[in-house]
């Protein structure tokens, strides 16, 4: 048995009763990835029993270094980036008070000594425990004064006293605790367990007036979430940050008691930095309806994180393989970029084309949010979408105007930055009769909205360059198909052709 004792990474002021238990437990979640046996004792220390897992982590010293590193990450928290970096650079253990020992009580006692500054931490623990003062055992604290009056100040002195007399005077509890501390009697612990669902509520230290102010507390919840995810070997896919308004109504207008902000990511991740950036981008665009006094972070969806194959070669990191990246290349992945751009600019502003099989140029491609399209392609790389290669696609322009721009006509010739010369065409084109009038698929201002009757030309002038224009063809009025030629020519003569600019050869 080997125990490591550490102080709680953060000590909140006594929180509200409903969330207090969860909140306290969350302080120990980060340790569950090292060993399943984690206990919180006396509300001020985390105890890890590591004898069964230390071989997995590369020995006792390596494990202790990683535990201290994880503790620093959990306590320093994300906002204090520089502080965490400092810890990482210095050999861990020089700042953190910690204790270890063969039993939980010994480890806790050394932790208390270290916290009191009595033992220079990090110098190892000398094997003798007889010299430890009595107040390091929580159960003995009520009796410390009377024992001191007897001249009994240390564990060794207490052990030397006759057991029967001690039991008669101080009760059997004292002897039992001493036996447990010395390893002569079994200890019983309430092991820390993870809840099935991650829901963490935190009271804000002060009323938050702006959405940015929520981020500080949210990042602490994220740190707890990271511990939860690591212990469960899961990655977060969707989160929800909810907040509770302090006021019920403002200026007589009732406001909802809570408000929530969901955040999704494409690939399951344990990387809190990405989630925090997403949250902050979304929060920056959110206006709070009222001051906020409480936030709740809820994990909506998670997925098992695939195990990465470990490299045979050691990574370049000092601390060990604990914080390696799946793709060790620097920079962020594409889905992270797209999610961040969409979060700030709006998902309708970050788009990718999806090609459609259609003859109408404006229907050949459809713009969809890039987070959906590109990630979907990555997930199913074997299904190329609509791979119909039109034979004359190289004759089409690289820019498309949506909607087509109406061109002025001068002497029966279209004008765009001056008169246009038609170089090639017409490419006669008749499609879209099937689509409903409501879709607005046809030419603008057409009587039959679905139908597109056009003649496409490649036109040119020196200013506008090569452009793709079309001329709208005359549509026979519905029902009046049997018209005479004279009538037709009269109709067209009365209504000149309309020309539109639809593409630019850029």
């Amino acid at each position: 048995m080997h125990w490591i004792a550490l102080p709680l990474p953060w000590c909140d002021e006594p929180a509200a009763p409903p969330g207090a238990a969860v909140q306290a437990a969350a302080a120990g979640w980060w340790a569950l990835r090292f060993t399943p046996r984690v206990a919180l004792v006396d509300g001020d220390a985390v105890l890890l029993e590591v004898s069964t897992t230390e071989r997995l982590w590369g020995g006792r010293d390596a494990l202790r270094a990683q535990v201290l590193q994880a503790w620093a990450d959990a306590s320093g928290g994300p906002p204090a980036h520089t502080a965490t970096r400092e810890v990482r650079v210095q050999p861990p253990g020089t700042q953190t008070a910690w204790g270890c020992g063969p039993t939980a009580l010994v480890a806790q006692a050394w932790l208390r000594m270290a916290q009191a500054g009595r033992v220079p931490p990090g110098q190892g623990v000398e094997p003798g425990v007889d010299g430890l003062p009595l107040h390091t055992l929580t159960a003995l604290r009520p009796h410390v004064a009377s024992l001191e009056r007897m001249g009994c100040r240390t564990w060794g002195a207490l052990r030397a006293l006759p057991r029967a007399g001690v039991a008669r005077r101080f009760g059997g509890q004292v002897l039992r605790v001493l036996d447990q501390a010395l390893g002569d009697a079994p200890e019983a612990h309430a092991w820390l367990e993870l809840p099935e669902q991650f829901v963490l509520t935190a009271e804000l230290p002060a009323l938050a007036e702006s959405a940015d102010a929520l981020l500080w507390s949210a990042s602490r919840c994220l740190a707890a979430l990271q511990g939860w995810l690591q212990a469960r070997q899961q990655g977060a896919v969707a989160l929800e940050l909810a907040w509770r308004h302090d006021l019920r109504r403002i200026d007589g207008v009732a406001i909802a008691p809570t408000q929530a902000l969901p955040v999704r990511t494409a690939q399951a991740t344990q990387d809190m930095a990405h989630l925090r950036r997403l949250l902050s981008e979304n929060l920056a665009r959110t206006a709070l309806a009222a001051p906020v006094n409480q936030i709740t972070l809820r994990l909506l969806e998670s997925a098992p994180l695939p195990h990465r194959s470990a490299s045979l070669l050691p990574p370049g990191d000092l601390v060990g393989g604990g914080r390696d990246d799946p793709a060790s290349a620097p920079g962020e992945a594409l889905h992270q970029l797209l999610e961040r751009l969409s979060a700030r600019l709006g998902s309708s502003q970050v788009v990718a084309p999806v090609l459609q099989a259609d003859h109408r140029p404006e229907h050949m491609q459809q713009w969809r949010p890039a987070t959906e399209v590109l990630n979907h392609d990555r997930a199913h790389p074997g299904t190329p979408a609509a791979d119909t290669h039109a034979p004359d696609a190289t004759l089409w322009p690289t820019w498309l105007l949506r909607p087509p721009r109406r061109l002025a006509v001068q002497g029966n010739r279209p004008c765009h930055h001056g008169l246009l010369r038609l170089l090639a065409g017409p490419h006669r084109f008749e499609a879209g009769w099937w689509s409903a009038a409501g879709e607005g698929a046809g030419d603008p201002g057409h009587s039959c909205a679905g139908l597109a009757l056009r003649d496409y030309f490649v036109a040119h002038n020196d200013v506008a360059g090569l452009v793709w224009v079309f001329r709208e063809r005359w549509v026979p009025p519905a029902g009046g198909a049997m018209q005479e030629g004279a009538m037709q020519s009269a109709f067209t003569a009365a209504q000149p052709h309309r020309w539109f600019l639809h593409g630019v050869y850029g």
Partner: protein
Amino acid sequence: MIAPRSTLRVALDLPSAMPGVWHADALGAGPQSAQPTGYALLDAQLPGGGWPVGAMSEVLQPMVGLHEWQLVLPALAQAVARRVGAVVVVAPPCEPFGPALRAQGLPAQRLCVVRPDNAKAALWAAEQALRCRDVLAVMAWLPQALPAALRRLQLAAAQQQQLLWVFRPVRAAPQASPALLRLQVQGLALPGDAVLSPGMQVQILKRRGPPLVQGLDLPGCHPRLAQVLAAQAARRRAAQGVTGATAVRHSAVPALTMRPVLAPGRGAPERRGHALDRTAVAMVR
């Protein structure tokens, strides 16, 4: 039209231990890797033989939307075929037409378009895209960018070794720019009744090497479109030769069916055989 200067020589006699130093009359060949542009004429004039990878190339143009893809697409198609990664287009002047781009080598599923609201957001988006490891190339239209902002982009591009094109109006030419390569592109005026397809003229304003006085004439459209245009022009001239003789016979052709093939306003009526001509065009395609 004008042959490139033959006096260019690569600095061989310089000590190789001094990167970034080259003869004033030679092209600077540094450690910078390059992506061939797809135009031999242009490659010969660019240091390293192509667009610089991991640096900014600035393209100045008289009007947005002209010649960008024509200039960039051959290089982009090669890069896309060789490496994985997305092509991010920031603040384009209009909508890129996916089918045409795919036909010229840029698949639609590699394309991502960002349409920011303002110039500041465009700069931000371009910089973020450059910091992403899965982005192959960035094309950004930044008409109002300041030199300091461009410098940020230049540094970001150097970090991840990506292709970066920034398109700006010609009036930005007098401003200082941190770009490694600055080009100015404009359309070539088409002579009155030429058979030639329209071209574009590229002037190199800044490069690692001596200044280039003459512009380079490059084709202004896809070779197949140029073929079609040439075929049509030849046919039109042949038609004009015949129409003089047959104009009288066909003066009664209904107005609805004529005009389209001929340039309107020239006033010459059309031959009756124009429908056959149209199928001939289709076969040429």
